[in-house]
């Protein structure tokens, strides 16, 4: 039987926030993230916002230069 999960549309690309081990990433650090499949959008301190193919996520998580990866989560408004 088809897995229930597979009946849902799954994004092929994930937006993520990556926290790096280095405090001030240099161009070569960002280039390395590019090699891992991350399309870098913004850099804020040692946090990097970008998109990555879902299939490459595990490789990004496992890389020594990466301290932590969070998927970008949509938050809800608090008013009506």
């Amino acid at each position, binding site marked *: 039987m088809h897995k229930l999960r597979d009946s849902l549309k799954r994004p092929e690309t994930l937006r993520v926030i990556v926290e790096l081990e280095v405090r001030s990433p240099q161009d070569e650090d960002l280039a390395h993230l590019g090699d891992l499949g991350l399309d870098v959008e913004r850099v*804020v301190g040692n946090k990097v916002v970008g998109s990555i193919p879902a299939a490459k996520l595990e490789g990004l998580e496992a890389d020594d230069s990466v301290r932590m990866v*969070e998927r970008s989560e949509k938050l809800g408004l*608090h008013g009506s």
Partner: protein
Amino acid sequence: MAKKKRVAKKPAKPRATKKKAPARHPRPRKTVSQTSPLAKLDPMLRLGASRAKVEARFQPRALEVPAVRPQAVSGLPLGIHSLASRLSRVGAERLQKEDLVSVVIDCGAGESVRESVDQWGGCGTRVSPSTVVARVPRTELESLARLSAVRYVEASTKLKLHSDLAHVSSGLVRAGVRTVPQTGAGVLVGIVDTGIDVSHPAFHSGGKTRIVNYLDQFTDQEFDSTKIDAGDAAGSTDTIGHGTHVSGIAAGNGGGSPNSALRGVAPEADLAVVKSTLETADILTAIAHIFDLAKARNQPAVVNCSFGGHVGGHDGSTIIERTIDELSGPGRIVVVSAGNEGSDPIHAHGVVRGEGATAARWDAKFSLSPRTFQGESGPVELGILFLQVWHQREDRLKVRLRSPSGNFLDPPAEGSKEHDFGSFFVEASRQVHPYSGDTLVTFEIITLPQAQWLSNWTLVAEEESPGSATVGAVHAWIRDGAEGRFTTGATFEYLIGMPASAYSAVAVASYATRNQWKSRDPQNPTIHLEDLALEALSSFSSPGPTRDGDTKPEVAAPGEWLLAPLSKDALPSELPPFTRVLGIEYASLRGTSMSAPYVTGSLALLLQKDGSIDWSEAKRRLIKSTRQDRHSGVCWNAGWGYGKLDLERLLTIEPDA
């Protein structure tokens, strides 16, 4: 990795409006209506109508003559306030003599009623098929009531715009006068939200916009004030209306309200607004963008975030929360709404710590809510629930699920594992959080929408062996109340959302300061929420503390039914007619989304006084200046934090020696 599935989450909504059942227009009783047209008149009008013919030579008592709207919006056919400029000379003379009465007419044929009013020397506007707002000669009130199309005539009651109740409660206004000299001038107020109606007069001064920067993250367009004044930002609309309202609470100047009475807290602050996707990745860049802007402009800044969610450890350890900590500093403060989940059973808490030879155990039951999702081949109805369970690093606990069919579903020692039973699917994972070191177990459950698979799920936590837990605290959060609810084990605390649990952020609770207003809803023209106790904590306001014991929320502010600017582009599905104030482009909304910008504006005033204040000093002064009353009880407590915002005191506290 903090493994979070990217399932689009519907924005959290507060619970259904707790207003009384829609009040229909009073219908005349048959026996009365057939004998006297006065039965169709609001009692406030009857006296005037019956006296008018007898006392025509006397100047009658004025019922209500609302102020004429400011020129900037006087051309808009919005209701009673725009009518004065359209009166005939005879009508204008009558208005001078105050014998024109402002009324709201419930009728069947609005256009013919409006024409009759015009013929009598008054003027009217049809605001809906069954509602006409008008100024009617007092002597013609009875004639109006005799029209067969007229069902009821209600006196137009002047809104109490001056000394708005929120400002009185916060100590910003006493006897109609602001108590503090600060206006926010020179301070940048940042709003990360759904956008802003750049054309609203509340955000203009001297014919120019007060918005110094507007970034649209959907289109990646950025507008400075010159571009905004040139009309370039007109396409970046606020169709939800949330951001415009929030901006107005913090920094609106009252434009578009009679005598500019509906000023925000910091009416002369500069505004920087980001129309955000509300994804954490974009929120992070939005806050950084505003602080970069403030630095370039050499201004102190306070950023408002009226949103949140229930992912992460509820201890300030997510990346976005720690980034907020890093970006905050002297002259840079972030304010976040506590959340609207105060009555939602989405959190369960237990202590798993035994003293004997038997391993301690705790469980909580929960159920899923069926919803419709986009599947590979069209819409599909499923139950999907995302559950995060946290326990401290000192404890060795076994956390698992028991399905409705009695199967136990365990996460692996590390990593993730899929459990596929055909009728339901569970992905379970376990990790040590890279920042806090605490253990996080996550379950993503997908079920068929039948009742036997949606209910009777059990979360079980037990010691791995007797005495393996030293703290034993277990906390579990369902990501959103729309996904499901705990049916046992729910505790209505620890509900401060993320990123309000950021250590440096000021988390704001909500209390009620208004329970009535005149709305544009013809079926419900007078909103009066009789059951809503003023000055009491809002039932929806999310209580603290955080999982690591931080005393959040820090402060409570007015957040239940605040009048603030209405975006002209707000969709009726987002802001229904009952929220829209009759006659002016303002709306009445509630939520910690509204209390947060109240504090944001307050901190703008504080930063005007001393632009070097950082978040810790701001919190010290907020906490020291709060007031407690019979509603708040002794503070700090989980609902109120340290108590109610007291602006007058906040701005008189001196630096800590």
